[in-house]
């Protein structure tokens, strides 16, 4: 019975696993010809998993019923909320990748399968309530991601991105394992709730070291300063659809995992990690903003922008409160929409031969030659800068509201003042598109699906979405509450 109950809780993951394995067989025998069919099948699998997770999020699943496999994973509303974002982002990556790789003659069926496995790993990460399950999920997600980064084998930059990502990722995994072993050694358990209890009587030196190592490894995964150095290179080198995936699904998973780890496993020692998170938050905001200023390449710019955004999300975590966790989820939601939107916008920048354009010089005066695309990008950039009435502002509002409620006024004040630096380079994006003389390099045609995705993302961040804030806020509150109602 217990196993049956556990299995019923992980049905979405099972669907992804089984369909992933079947797709591997298809890929092996079908060859390149099967790639489109495999893509569509993977999208369907993700859609199915999405549909299965959605009810538990709406119902705010929490408590003992959500624990599976004797406390290895938990399928609560918090995990569910993150999973919805992961599946949506992975699906979006699949939708835009076909056209991109077919143009380069590199579309093979293993690409959608890798995305699927990476999403599966991410899905395990967000529901993990045990350090071992956490590590398995993380590695499954990362291994697929290393391959994805180097997917364009004959492209030097892509190969370099894959190698950099792998070497540094492996280092981070090593740090993580070392931290896990310390924590296991000093607390005697790998389960989050047992660690929490063991740490409640004060933090021993070994536990503190373990905690710092684990958090450092997580900081690498979410590309928070000072472990962010790989991000611009990998984001620039990886194929654009893959970059879009990296900036969304794995990041959501790592952030959600970090939140669960900090609030559940280390929940009894918030003071120990709060200062680390506070430092990482402010450093990410400032470095992300300053680093972006000199960039000419749009993908690098968006890489710094994602570092900057992670800083704001970490402000939510630094509050160590339910409101903070809810604000992180809301921020992630709009962050995913903005990320997908901005990368789809980049993918639509093609010259007459279908080559991708990715520097500021190419989008000069885009608003006169391609007004629809330019206005969509304008909305996304103002949203990223956090200018009302766009939803990027709402994301910042909830995060800073949580910070103020937790009496972290200096953090809030410095964080928001630093966001003005970030506004500078988002403005540059708009300035180049709207104020400069047109160069008319963007010529390529785009298929409908790109436009559908772009329109959807813009709709999510448009002022219309204010009307949904009541509903979304409620969902996020329920999800965050499920973290704090320990089973």
């Amino acid at each position: 019975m217990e196993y049956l109950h556990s299995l019923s809780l992980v049905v979405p993951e099972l669907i992804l696993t089984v369909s992933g394995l079947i797709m591997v067989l298809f890929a092996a025998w079908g060859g390149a010809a099967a790639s489109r069919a495999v893509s569509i099948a993977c999208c369907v699998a993700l859609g199915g998993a999405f549909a299965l997770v959605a009810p538990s999020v709406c119902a705010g699943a929490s408590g003992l019923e959500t624990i599976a496999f004797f406390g290895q994973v938990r399928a609560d509303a918090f995990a569910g909320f993150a999973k919805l974002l992961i599946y949506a982002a992975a699906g979006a990556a699949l939708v835009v990748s076909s056209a991109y790789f077919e143009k380069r003659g590199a579309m093979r069926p293993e690409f959608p399968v890798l995305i699927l496995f990476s999403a599966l790993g991410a899905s395990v990460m967000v529901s993990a309530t045990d350090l071992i399950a956490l590590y398995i999920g993380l590695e499954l997600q990362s291994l697929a991601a290393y391959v994805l980064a180097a997917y364009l084998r004959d492209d030097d930059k892509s190969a370099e991105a894959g190698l950099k990502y792998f070497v540094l990722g492996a280092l981070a995994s090593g740090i993580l394992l070392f931290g896990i072993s310390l924590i296991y050694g000093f607390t005697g358990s790998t389960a989050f709730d047992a660690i929490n209890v063991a740490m409640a009587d004060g933090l021993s030196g070994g536990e503190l070291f373990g905690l710092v190592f684990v958090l450092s490894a997580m900081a690498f995964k979410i590309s928070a300063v000072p472990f962010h150095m790989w991000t611009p290179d990998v984001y620039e080198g990886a194929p654009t659809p893959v970059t879009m995936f990296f900036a969304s699904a794995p990041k959501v998973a790592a952030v959600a995992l970090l939140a669960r780890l900090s609030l559940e496993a280390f929940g009894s020692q918030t003071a120990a990690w709060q200062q680390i998170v506070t430092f990482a938050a402010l450093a990410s905001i400032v470095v992300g903003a300053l680093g972006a200023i000199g960039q000419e390449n749009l993908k690098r710019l968006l890489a710094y922008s994602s570092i900057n955004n992670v800083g704001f999300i970490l402000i939510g975590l630094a509050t160590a409160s339910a409101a903070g966790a809810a604000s992180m989820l809301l921020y992630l939601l709009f962050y995913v929409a903005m990320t997908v939107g901005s990368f789809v916008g980049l993918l639509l920048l093609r010259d007459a031969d279908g080559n991708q354009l990715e520097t500021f010089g190419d989008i000069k005066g885009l608003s006169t030659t391609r007004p629809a695309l330019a206005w969509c990008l304008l909305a996304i950039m103002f949203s990223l800068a956090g200018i009302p009435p766009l939803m990027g502002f709402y994301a910042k509002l909830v995060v800073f509201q949580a910070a103020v409620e937790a009496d972290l006024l200096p953090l809030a004040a410095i964080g928001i003042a630093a966001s003005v630096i970030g506004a500078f380079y988002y403005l540059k994006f708009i300035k180049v598109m709207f104020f400069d003389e047109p160069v008319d390099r963007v010529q390529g045609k785009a298929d409908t699906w790109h436009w559908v995705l772009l329109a959807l993302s813009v709709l999510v961040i448009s002022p219309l979405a204010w009307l949904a804030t009541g509903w979304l806020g409620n969902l996020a509150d329920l999800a965050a509450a499920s973290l704090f109602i320990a089973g």
Partner: protein
Amino acid sequence: MSGFPILSVMLLVPLLGAVACFKASASAARTIALVATLVDLALGIVLWANFDIGGDQWQFTERASLFAGFQWALGIDGIALMLIMLSVFLMPICILASHSIEKRVGEYMAAFLFMEVLMIGTFAAQDLFLFYILFEAGLIPMYLIIGIWGGVDRIYASYKFFLYTLLGSVLMFIAMLWMANTAGTTDIPTLMAYDFAPSAQTWLWLAFFASFAVKMPMWPVHTWLPAAHVQAPTAGSVILAGVLLKLGGYGFIRFSLPMFPEASAQFVWLVWGLSMAAVVITSLIALVQHDMKKLIAYSSVAHMAIVTIGLFSFNTQGLDGAMIVMLSHGLVSGALFLCVGVIYDRLHTREIDRYGGLSINMPKYALFFLLFTMASIGLPGTSGFVGEFLSLGGIYQVNSWVAFVCTTGIILGAAYMLYLYRRIAFGEQKNADAAAMPDLNAREWAMLAPIAAAVLWMGVYPESFMAPMRNDIALLEARISRAQPASDARLVTGEAAPAAAEEEAAAHGGAH
């Protein structure tokens, strides 16, 4: 009118207009924009006509719980009514003044109509966060207006405008979050009656000051204004000077004073000092300008300092004066920018030396220009006089030195405005091309005549404008009187006046 959501409709009309303009052709966009703004003007007149003077403090209120954590809450008092009227009055004129815009007309008109939505919404918002959203969203259309349709240095000006005002506002945002958390409500009328602890007020006041001082703009954070004005198209300057600058003053009167009276009193020296510096320094700067728009921009800073002086005199007279200066400056500086626009359209230069003797070939233009010049100086009979007299009268009751320094602004104002007028309208016609310019056409008449009428009306019978605000100013005065700074005049009533006080008062009086 009860039940009809007139404020929401006033927001909806230009919003729909903006959407329609977006894709429309140039001539269609001009028509749509003009119609939308005229409809809003008509709605504004209905609003004023139905405003019950002496009735409830908040009228035309609307409430709808649409969002998480805050409400769609609208409502106006007399102060907001007057500023909304100023906005809807100037908007059709701005649309007419945009005749010379040829580039991307649809998007231009859409930006202006969107701007109108945000301005009316800011004045009508009764929820803290709703106010902030509308207040801050104005950056987007203004950034585009300056950046796309501006002059040579438009990019520098647009960045400066955007980043300056954003930095000011985000700190206010944190303060708002703290207030909402502490008071447990985001309802502005409730917050206006809420007593924050005096120690907290200090920080909150400073955070709000950071935003409003930049928007106002007060010296020394005014430097974005000349840059933005010079580069903005004529209509952009009119909106910037006419309405956007009023957001700062409105913020002081709606937030800083009633919500933090003790802190306002505590920082009164700061406001006075900056205002005195602004009046003298920016007036002197205006005196040496060669660019007409820059000159008027600096004069705006000086006038706004008179507003802050009036606001922070803590008495009815000063508050009344500050409001009238805001309305008057909205009309007059808007009109002056229009006057500059009229000759700029003909000669495409703002260099003062390129003109001269225009009263010979453009007598009607020279007449209007003279009227607005005089109104800017504050000649009795024009709106400028009423406002400046009341403001300075208000501050004189509290501090005669501040009044003394600020009154020099009137003299300096006369100096730079008359000097400007002499160089443009009088003297020889030294430039042949300037001498050949035709006089006002019908469109320009339609722009300038209504403003001239309003300026004279406000100057001759200001009661029409002060009556709706009287109750609100009285309430505000009652709210802040407990923190009123002591007057340096040390008025003594009754017969038993000690001799020493008399002597000192005499000595003080003698100083002037």
